[in-house]
């Protein structure tokens, strides 16, 4: 794994992007998008996180194994949320309380 030196210019551009996205998410929260407020906030947050992971944390330049670990961690958190959501979303479907 060669030692990949990322030029400061990349860091600064990513930094500006992150600040812009922060401003965007605050602005987006102040306008009523109905059901879309939460998804928009999440998409912006995920974009910022991906920027930090790829450039600040050098995952873009490190081995495939590290990328696999990152993906695995996120996937497992989603598994936990999906499994529990499966319970909460389908409560009461059988028609009597508590089933």
């Amino acid at each position, binding site marked *: 794994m060669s030692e990949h030196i990322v030029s400061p210019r990349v860091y600064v551009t990513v930094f500006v992007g992150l600040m812009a996205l922060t401003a965007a998410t605050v602005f987006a929260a102040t306008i009523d998008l109905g059901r879309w407020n939460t998804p928009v906030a*999440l998409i912006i947050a995920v974009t910022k996180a991906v920027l930090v992971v790829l450039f600040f944390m050098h995952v873009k330049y490190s081995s495939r194994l590290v990328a696999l670990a990152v993906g695995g961690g996120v996937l497992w958190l989603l598994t936990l*949320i999906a499994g529990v959501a499966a319970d909460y979303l389908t409560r009461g479907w059988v028609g009597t309380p508590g089933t």
Partner: protein
Amino acid sequence: MSSVADTAHAPEADRHHPDLVHHFESLPAQKEAATLGMWVFLVTEVMFFGGLFLAYTMYRNLYFHAFVQSSRHLNLTLGAVNTAVLICSSLTMAMGVHSSALGRRRATVAWLLLTVALGSVFLGIKAVEYKDKFDHHLVPGERFQAEELHLEGDEARQAQIFYALYFAMTGLHATHMVIGVPIILILAWMAHRGRFSPEYHTPVEMTGLYWHFVDIIWIFLFPLLYLIGRHH
């Protein structure tokens, strides 16, 4: 797909580098292992915070109105400023790692100290916010009063769940920063003493990964806690 460290042709000089521990063949192999180890640790941190994010997700959908009213009472400007402060500290940390990789000793110390400063500013703002919650009796427990949130009855109690999650998630995040700041301070001191070199600056890089992770957690905490229903 066996990616066994190539040992045959590690340069001789590299084999006796003072920082090379006995059970690794070469410095790059040692660094690669350290990087993978750090990332596996960060995966455990994702699952560690994940438990709270799960609880937050479920209760937000169950008690949305109480969450909106409670979130509205959080100070949006302080939250936004804190986010900006933390993103700046991520930049300074990245620059710190960058200059330690190039062996620029004084630049590394400067960037690291800047990161420590920004981290402290973040914790300061957090302390202000917490004090404000204590003053308004918005801390979960017997003395919790939800009049200011215009909630009563069950929804007043559900607001306690929001603030329980608020304190748990931001508290856990702040604890991670309280651990991170002294570590970066020690790194700055070691960099000052010339401990790192272009061949060996793994501790700086690993701490950088940790710090960026803590920043990512806040990148999710800020919209989830502060930005629900800021419109109407």
